[in-house]
């Protein structure tokens, strides 16, 4: 996940603007609701959003801002269960193909128009028409009919049952648009965002900042917030600061209030009384992939042997100083539904001796120099493709050393992200180092399914057995059965080793202590609805 992987810890931290944990009692006796209103919180953004039209982007900065301005029908609670947001409840037909949503009453867009079933229908029909750039666009190609039988009832009819639909409906890309605002803007809503969210767009100074202003009319927060009205913080500001070092300087100078920290700066801020450090998990992980379509890595035995030459813990300790990542055992990250610690039993653990024995057994013999040759006697110099990020560069260097220890001369090619995205479907690589971020066990269909080989399946792995499990996982709505399917899918992936999962990033975010009552979910998502700025 080229762009997302780099940004996700920060954005996971920020984006959970309107979901949240039970209220805490730490608000302080003197602070009344009225006295908490006011103040500004400033975040850094590495770039401007490309657009605020949520059907025309997959940009993480845009997505973060959508979380404040728009609201989807569905959301997730602290335990990752799906709950209603603009929908109060829903029912699913016995054949799992028709979903009927009962919508929340009394919700209004910030242009004053009322939220209703027609707005939901309008939004998703527009997504089907113009949403090719949206990450949830493929989901809606499975939606064959949408109806608004009355003001507060909205139905979606699916071509086939589709279990991940609630995940997609809960993303910020599935926010509901105001039809009157879209029409008023002649469908050009790239810079005029009107939603039902707790904030509204005040100002966008291109290249400088986006300012969001508290929606004083907001009166429908999720049930678990202590604050039952509009948010307390008057303004949320995103300052565009592209350079990481300049972001750190801006944090130091008090120009921004929050920043995801790199490992090297963590010790400095951990003991700084001006900041509090918040941890957050990523909904994904970084893996070492093998090009499973081409020789020689179409051979699972070779993949199996090399996977065991990889020392994940060393990567965590050296590259992340043991603090900003955790070794990952299995394809589904700990933070995602479907993770099962029992799968550790099938993990391909670091074992140099075993890796050497397996390489010997399949004909990759070591020569006098200690380096191995292929079974036909030719040089064995597999090429690893990865992005040009510092982190990936360091990991690639470590992998070179680790594979050298078993006699494999790994070559590394670091590419700029756009070039990497273009190179991998062409199978120019032997190995591939990257990550994914997707809060759904159906990530298998994105990254390891046969029909994604020319796009997001960058290891070009296609296994009919796994394919059956992927299809079963997508169409099974029974939760227990579905989790068993993903257990089997992970077990098969570990045995076949198209991926060796490496680590799950942990975000460490410094937040100014002037921000009070900031709360976190178990996975580290931070929720701003109860938060206020100490004057």
């Amino acid at each position, binding site marked *: *996940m*080229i*762009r*997302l992987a780099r940004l996700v810890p920060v954005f996971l931290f920020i984006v959970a603007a309107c979901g949240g944990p039970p209220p805490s009692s730490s608000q302080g006796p003197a602070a009344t609701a009225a006295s908490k209103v006011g103040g500004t919180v400033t975040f850094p953004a590495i*770039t401007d959003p*490309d*657009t605020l*039209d949520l059907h*025309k982007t*997959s*940009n993480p900065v845009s997505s973060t801002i959508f979380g404040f301005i728009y609201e989807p029908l569905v959301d997730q609670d602290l335990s990752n269960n799906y709950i209603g947001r603009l929908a109060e409840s829903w029912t699913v037909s016995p054949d799992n193909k028709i979903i009927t949503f009962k919508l929340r009453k009394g919700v209004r867009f910030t242009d004053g128009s009322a939220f209703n079933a027609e707005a939901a229908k309008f939004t998703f029909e527009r997504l089907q028409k113009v949403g*090719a*750039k949206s*990450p949830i*666009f*493929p989901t809606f*190609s499975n939606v064959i009919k949408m109806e608004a039988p009355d003001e507060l009832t909205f139905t979606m009819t699916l071509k086939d049952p589709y279990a991940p639909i609630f995940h997609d409906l809960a993303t910020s890309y599935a926010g509901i648009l105001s039809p009157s605002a879209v029409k008023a803007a002649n469908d050009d809503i*790239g810079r005029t965002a009107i939603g039902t969210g707790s904030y509204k767009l005040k100002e966008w*100074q*291109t*290249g*400088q*900042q986006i300012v969001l202003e508290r929606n004083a009319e907001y009166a429908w927060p999720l049930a678990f917030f202590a604050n039952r009205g509009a948010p307390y913080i008057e303004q949320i500001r995103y*300052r*565009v*600061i*592209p*350079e990481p*070092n*300049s972001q750190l*300087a*801006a944090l*130091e*100078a008090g*120009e921004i209030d929050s920043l995801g920290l790199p490992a090297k700066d963590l010790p400095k801020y951990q003991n700084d009384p001006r900041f509090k450090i918040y941890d957050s998990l990523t909904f994904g992980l970084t893996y070492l992939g093998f090009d499973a379509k081409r020789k020689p890595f179409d051979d699972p035995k070779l993949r199996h042997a090399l996977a065991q030459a990889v020392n994940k813990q060393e990567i965590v300790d050296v590259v992340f100083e043991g603090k900003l990542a955790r070794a990952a055992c299995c394809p589904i990250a700990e933070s995602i539904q479907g993770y099962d610690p029992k799968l550790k039993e099938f993990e391909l653990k670091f074992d140099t001796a075993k890796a050497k024995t397996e390489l010997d057994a399949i004909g990759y013999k070591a020569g006098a120099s200690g380096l191995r040759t292929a079974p036909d006697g030719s040089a064995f110099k597999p090429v690893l493709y990865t992005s040009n990020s510092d982190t990936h560069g360091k990991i690639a260097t470590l992998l070179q050393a680790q594979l050298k220890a078993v006699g494999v001369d790994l070559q590394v090619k670091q*590419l*700029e*992200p*756009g*070039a990497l*995205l*273009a*190179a991998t*479907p062409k199978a120019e690589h032997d190995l591939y180092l990257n990550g*994914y971020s*997707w809060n759904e066990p159906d990530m298998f269909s*994105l990254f390891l399914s046969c*029909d*994604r080989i*020319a*796009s*997001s399946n*960058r290891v070009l792995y296609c296994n009919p057995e796994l394919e059956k499990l992927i299809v079963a996982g997508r169409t099974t709505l029974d939760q227990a059965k579905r989790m068993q399917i993903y257990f089997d899918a992970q077990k098969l992936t570990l045995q076949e080793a198209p991926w060796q999962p490496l680590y799950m990033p942990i975000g460490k975010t410094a937040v100014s202590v002037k921000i009070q009552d900031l709360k976190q979910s178990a996975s580290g998502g931070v929720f701003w609805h109860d938060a206020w700025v100490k004057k």
Partner: protein
Amino acid sequence: MWRYALRRLVLAVPVLLGVSTGVFLMAALVPGDPATVLAGDTASVAQIERIRQDLGLDQPLPIQYARFMERLILHGSLGESTRTHREVLVEIMDRMPYTLELAIGAVILSTLVGVASGVVAAIYRGRRWDYGITGVAAFALAIPSFLIAILMILLFSLQLRWLPVTGAGTWQHLVLPTVALALHSAAVKARITRSSMLEVLGHDYLRTARAKGLRERVVVIRHALKNALIPITTLIGLQFGSLLGGAFIIENIFGWPGIGRLATQAVFNRDFPIVQGTVLVGAVIYFSANLVVDLLYAWLDPRIRYS
């Protein structure tokens, strides 16, 4: 002179067309597919294909080129940003005032500081002032502008808290990026001015001026400096282009919302209409700056005639 300027403007047309064609071809040859980048790394093949069609990238290269030129020549349009869906010219005009503010600020600052230092170094040749100025100039030339920028942030923003780290909109925001951008250029101007002045100061007509009893200040400023300025003027024109280029780095460090940052982001996002637009606009500015410089020659040296 006006006929000369007109001829130069007419000549600019094929140059700019050549630049447009070059940039178009470079964009086509750069590895990385705009549709893939735009779709993100979870996109399906169908999604990527649809975006490719929407952008017209499914057409053969000559047709894409013909459409690009048709839009440019017949409609004066540089197209639409693939990322933001806004007109390229609108995107550029949003950023242009900031870049010009920075570049013009840096040209003025570097010229004032560079020329003044060069004159002082020439007048005090071989003495303490000369050594001091040439030493500082050598240091400023050797140290990269991004390092200067970081050191200035550390000192003026974090240590002394006098100036903001990033952003734009007030004169305080302008100080650090302007100085960082101007320093290298000022050093070059100081060195050129010094050598140019030394050459001029040895001429007979200056001895005559002194013999006439003119004050030394008048001799230096009115008679020596005006003649020494010709190479400096050429340099200003040439450096204006490199200042625009240097702004790419400085704008990123200081979060300055100019076209340098727009172009950098566009390259990473494979937003080729923006890349083409910024290069073309850069070429126009560079060309215009040099035309103005050429026209200034006549004012500086009346012996120069335009034919």
